[in-house]
């Protein structure tokens, strides 16, 4: 969304325009939900946090500083809510994603090679991301899923750009290695079974 259009919507929403508020929610809900789903691995947790983040933002809309991006503010609030929720109750993967993780244990590359369902592929990716450090996971989600530039991620996380890049490279390398290890393991198993 164009920043001028967004600022106008924010001003209108702050003045009590419900339609402008709804437009802002619709403009940002997909990316925020995707980010929270990636971070938590649970749709119910992602939904709760996304709703609460929007409610907090709209309740304190007059505090918004137009020098910054609305999405940066929204994502920062959502992340804080997620961190607080994690401290209270550690999120647990739901049954579908847990199923994907089990499959990962038996070999994610097999799933890729066999062209299994997208849900299972998603489970594999969630499994891979879950084995990264929290910083790496978040940076991968922001960079590849939400297409945030490095400079914006650096601002959002309060981390130097070089560190962000380093985390990103290490994360991708780790995911490649995990997939390779799994492929080797699977090949060994197939050899053992073949007469």
């Amino acid at each position: 969304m164009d920043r001028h259009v967004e600022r106008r919507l924010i001003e209108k929403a702050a003045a009590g325009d419900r339609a402008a508020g709804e437009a802002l929610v619709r403009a940002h809900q997909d990316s925020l939900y995707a980010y929270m789903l990636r971070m938590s691995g649970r749709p119910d947790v992602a939904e709760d946090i996304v709703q609460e983040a929007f409610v907090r933002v709209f309740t304190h809309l007059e505090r918004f500083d137009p020098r910054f991006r609305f999405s940066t503010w929204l994502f920062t609030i959502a992340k804080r809510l997620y961190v607080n929720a994690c401290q209270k109750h550690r999120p647990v993967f739901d049954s579908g994603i847990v199923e994907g993780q089990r499959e990962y244990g038996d070999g994610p590359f097999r799933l890729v090679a066999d062209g299994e369902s997208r849900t299972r592929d998603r489970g594999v990716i969630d499994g891979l991301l879950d084995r990264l450090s929290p910083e790496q996971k978040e940076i991968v989600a922001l960079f590849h899923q939400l297409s945030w530039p490095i400079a914006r991620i650096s601002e959002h996380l309060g981390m130097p750009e070089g560190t962000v890049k380093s985390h990103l490279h290490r994360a991708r390398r780790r995911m490649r290695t995990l997939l390779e290890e799994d492929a080797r393991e699977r090949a060994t198993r197939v050899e053992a079974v073949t007469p």
Partner: protein
Amino acid sequence: MTTEGLPGGGPGRDLDALIDAFFDGELSAAEESALLDLVDRDPVAAERFARTAWVIDEIRRPTSAPDFSGSVMSRVHGRRAWLSDGWRRFVGVGRLVAAACLLLALAGGLAARRMAPDSVTLGTQAGPLSQVVDAGRVEAASGAMTISSTFDIVRGAAKRGEAAECEGESHAIIVRSCGGAEFSGERTAPSTIWSSPAEASQSRATVIVVKNPG
């Protein structure tokens, strides 16, 4: 695996770094084509490239989010009032009117102070706040008694249906005409309207002149 011989490669840059740079859009056109040539020729490079591409594609796959706009707005409504266009315009105009009234009140106060500087006197010496509060209470009580006695006189005159005598300076005049139309006003001397209640009666009107109780 090293990438020596590639334009973007070298002893310090491995294949992974080159693949990452490709997906980050950091390679030049020449480096990109060299990497893709390598991927075509070398199965190891092809596999690593394919794994990275698959992971990135999977991460980028869009997620379908439910529509939160209705539920969010309903929850926010409890904490913040959402207004229709008409009401928002009304509130906007109301704010301007309130600001104008405030300015007028301030201007009126300043004008009154200039016209009658003795009407408002502020203490020049510092004193305890309790003294100021006590003085205010006394003044407020005195004002309330004055208003009360004025209304008592008016009520009594109206009940008797006769005009009160006008002597000296009056505080208020209430004129009730026989036709039913009413006029009320304030004068320092009632004679400027009617010289006496008798004259007022000739104009078929009831005049109640209330003496200044002070």
